[in-house]
Structure formats: C-alpha cells, structure tokens
C-alpha cells in the first residue's frame, strides 16, 4: 500500500484528461466527436486556464488531427490525440502511415458503433477497422486501468517507436463516474521520463532523414516484416513494462485475487479455476459485468473462468493458449462483427487454438450500438457455450 495516492471520484473522460495533462505531451490535436468529446474539451480547457503548456491544435477534421500529431511526432516530441467511430475511420489512412513511419503517437479511442445506421453509442467496431495497421491496441476495463494504460502507452510508444491506442468503451467508461487514482506529474515522471529521441530518429536539419519514402517491391516486404516482427516482439516489453509500472507507480488499488488459476501480466488477466469447464473471453468494460454475473454462479454452475484480453495487438497468443488449453468450452464475446464471418476476437482465439485444444469455441456478438449487456445475457451465453454453435451467435436479450 502506498499513501501517496488519493482516490477521487471522476468521470472517465476527466480521469483520462487529467492523466494526459500529467504526462505532459508537447502537442495535442483532436476534433471533437461523441463520446470522446469530454476528453479533448477538458484538455483544451486545461490549456486555456493556463494549467498546461502543450500546444493544443484545433483541427478541421479527424484526418487533419491525425496528420497534425503525425507531423509533430515526426519532429521528435510527445503527442496525443483522441477520437471515436467515424472519426477513427476518417483517420484511417493516417493511422496506417503513423505506424509505418514508426511514430510514437498515443491516442485514445472512445469506442463507438459505426454508421450506417448512425449510432452514437458504444461497441468496438471502430477499432476493428484499423486492427491491422501496426498499432499496439490496449483495452481498459475500468477507469483505473485506462489511467494506467495511458501512462504505460507513452513509455511503450517512445521506447519501441510504435504507436499505441488505448481503447475505452464509449459512455461506459467515458461518461461514468467512479473512484480512481490519478498519479501526479512527479509520480508519472519517475516511470515515464521526458521524451528524448536520439539524433537521426526524428526530423532535424542537423541530421537529415526521410520518413515515409517510396519503397519498391525490392524492399517493401522486408520493411513490413520488420514492423510485424517488432510489434510481435513488443509482447515481452509490454509484460515487462506492466511489472515495472506496478513497481514504480505502486497504486493501492485492491486487486482481485483471481481464483486458483489467477494471472495478470499486462497482456491478459485471468480469474477462475485452473481447470475451468467454460472460459468467457472479452475485451474492455464488459469484463466487469461478466465478473459480477459469474461470481454468484461459481458454486453451482460448474467451473467458470474469465479471460480479459488487455492487449489485442500484438495478439498474446501463447499467454492466451496457456489459459484456454484446459477448458472444455470457450465463449468469446465480441462487441463487433467481421461481417460475413464471426467476431474478430473469436476468429483470433480460434486461430490460436488450432491444433492445440479440442475445446468447443463459440462466437457471441453482443452489445452492438449500445445495447446493454446484462448479467442475464452472460448467464445465457454460459449455457449456450456448452452447445455446438455455428457461425456468429447474436445475443440481443
């Protein structure tokens, strides 16, 4: 326990904005879009009130906002942006360029459904559109995890020269008040030093370099492979940084013991028995609802494990396999759908399980466009997980 930290009750957006202020980026650029708006409004207000010294650049669109942070990052400074839904889709071209140019941009995606039909509420379809762009994709279950992941995101991005996106469920995290600890700028600095890229790593007239140059068929494949290899290798760094973060920023957060088979390593968090009958797997805030729904069931309803995927890209395949290999049934709950196939997370889990387990793996699609995922739905999914399910199973009520 550490008495240097004080819990406060805050809206999720405010918690993220205060954390970003204390991380002290040099340049922030964003375009407001629901449900991300409160984050960037707060950041603009901190600047206007003289509480922060970053450049806050108002952009005319998300495409421009992403381009502005890309350009700023290329000059060797710490940058931040935030968006949602259509905003992320509009950024897509720049999102790929940021990763390809190895720019350490950090961005929050307040996850929201995409059009059409137009819908402002939460699901995770937006991030799936840029899943393959080469960013580290983190998902937070609650305010504290969102705060912690944002601090770690900058350390990872700047150390690895890879962009990091922290995903928080729109409204569910961004518009909810709950207790959270915001480390101060001084506390954060002990873990995350000022960003000082080496000469030759950024645009500098003293050391001229070109970023994003043309690569012919003779070189393109190797450059893409290098990005893939570095992203895959970052799994180890993410695990190490998680340990390092918890050592340096030693928050007095009560952690769940996680049961006999419990594991928490920065990539995944597992709570449940060592040999579960059924494992539920999901990304983001719905894990809280699952934990609440499962806890009274533990005694009577068989052995149930809950696997939270905190890092979706790079995909922590071996960590996941070590948990799921002993389960009979695996229920993957996606708040997104690869239209014409199954849930994106479910497809990844099936790929990991291929040849390694005979578990019955089902893809459940829930919570699209803000549909509330209830404890009753979780119980229904647990029941259905024991059956043979073909394709995506939509759980509407």
């Amino acid at each position, binding site marked *: 326990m550490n008495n240097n930290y004080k819990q406060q009750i805050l809206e999720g957006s405010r918690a993220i904005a205060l954390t970003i202020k204390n991380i002290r980026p040099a340049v922030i650029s964003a375009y407001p879009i629901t449900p991300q708006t409160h984050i960037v409004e707060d950041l603009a207000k901190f600047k206007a009130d003289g509480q922060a010294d970053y450049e806050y650049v108002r952009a005319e669109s998300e495409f421009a906002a992403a381009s502005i942070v890309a350009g700023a990052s290329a000059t060797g400074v710490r940058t931040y942006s935030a968006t949602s839904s259509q905003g992320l889709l509009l950024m897509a071209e720049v999102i790929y360029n940021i990763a390809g140019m190895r720019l350490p941009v950090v961005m929050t995606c307040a996850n929201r459904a995409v059009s059409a039909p137009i819908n402002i509420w939460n699901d995770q379809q937006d991030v799936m559109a840029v899943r393959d762009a080469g960013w580290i994709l983190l998902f937070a279950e609650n305010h504290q995890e969102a705060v912690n992941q944002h601090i770690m995101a900058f350390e990872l991005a700047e150390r690895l020269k890879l962009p990091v996106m922290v995903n928080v469920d729109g409204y569910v995290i961004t518009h909810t008040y709950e207790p959270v600890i915001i480390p101060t700028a001084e506390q954060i600095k002990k873990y995350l030093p000022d960003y000082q890229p080496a000469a030759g790593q950024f645009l500098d007239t003293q050391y001229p370099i070109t970023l994003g140059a043309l690569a012919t068929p003779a070189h393109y494949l190797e450059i893409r492979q290098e990005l893939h290899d570095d992203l895959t290798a970052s799994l180890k760094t993410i695990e190490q940084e998680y340990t390092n973060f918890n050592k340096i920023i030693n928050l007095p957060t009560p952690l769940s013991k996680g049961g006999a088979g419990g594991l928490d390593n920065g990539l995944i968090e597992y709570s449940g028995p060592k040999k579960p009958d059924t494992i539920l797997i999901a990304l983001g805030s719905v894990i809280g609802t699952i934990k609440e729904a499962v806890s009274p069931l533990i005694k009577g309803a068989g052995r149930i494990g809950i696997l939270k995927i905190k890092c979706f890209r790079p995909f922590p395949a071996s960590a996941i396999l070590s948990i799921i290999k002993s389960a009979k049934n695996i229920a993957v709950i996606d708040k997104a759908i690869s239209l014409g196939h199954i849930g994106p997370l479910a497809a990844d889990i099936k790929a990991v399980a291929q040849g390694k387990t005979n578990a019955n793996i089902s893809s459940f699609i829930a919570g699209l466009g803000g549909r509330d*995922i*209830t404890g009753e739905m979780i119980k229904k999914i647990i029941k259905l997980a024991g059956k043979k399910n073909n394709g995506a199973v939509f759980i509407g009520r």
Partner: protein
Amino acid sequence: MTDDNMIQIRIHGRGGQGVVTAAELIAIAAFKDGKQAQAFPSFGVERTGAPVESYVRIDERPIITREQIYRPDILIIQDASLLDSVDLAKGADKKTIVIVNTAKAGGLKINLPQANIHAIDAAKIALEIIGKNIVNTVILGAFAKTTDLVSLASLKSAIQEKFSGNQGLIDKNIRAIERAYDI
C-alpha cells in the same frame, strides 16, 4: 445480479432537466461519505425534452458491473408527466422507494405502495430559489432526507465541487437542497 448491500438508484427525467448531473451528484456525495459509488447515463436521442435515464450504485465494496439498473431500490422521477408515456416503475418492487416531483401528490399513475411514494413540489422550490424550473438538485434534498443514503453535508460539498467556479449557482442550489431537506 448484485450483492445484497448494493443500493441501486434509477433517475428518470427529460433531456435538459439535469438527470445525469443528479446521478453524478449522488455518487460524488456517497463517495465523500466514504462509500464506493458509480454513476452513469443512458442517453436516448440527444435532444431537449426526450426521456433520459441515469443510474447510481452505492456499495461498501468496489462496483464492477456495468449493466443498467433493472431492479431499482430507489426511483427518482424528476418529471411526473413521464408517467403517462413510460413505464417508470419497471423492475421496482414493494420495497422500492419513489421520490417524485409533482405539484399534486394524489392520483399518480404508479402501481407501487403509496407509503413508499414521496412527492415533493420541487418545481415550486426551484422557481422560488433558483429562479428556473431546474429540479434535479432540489429533489436530491428530499432524496437525502428520505433515504439517508448520503449526508446533507456531503451533498452540499458535491454541489460545490460540481458547480465549482459559479458561486451564485452553488449558493442557490444549496439553499434549494436545504429547503427540500427541511420539509
């Protein structure tokens, strides 16, 4: 879907009536009283006058569920005219406490034990003290008095925090809450 000690509060009103702010104020006040709390909105279409719900949970232990509130222990109704169009009592039971803003206490279309229904003419107090028909904070005075779930001191402190920078608004809202509490 919740443990026995968790208190679940559902607030009904219309867009523009401060339904979400009311939930946030209760959560902030409960937290100031040393409890764990969670508040979140359920927005419908983003326009003034449309029905809006917000939710609060209060507990001794950390709150992890994100589902909306289907079995409220407390129902706060900021606009009794909603009773004509929305089933506000859905999921409520004979123990649910109802706090409703209305000028006429009798004849409310709500099928719950009369003893649990607490009517307050919050609009009258709001018009008199705040000068606008914004009833959300006024009702919280009645909520604190009726349920004892948050202290009046913490509620006032929550108002100061939430409306920080606008002392006039803070003073008026605190006076309105005190009036409702003292009825």
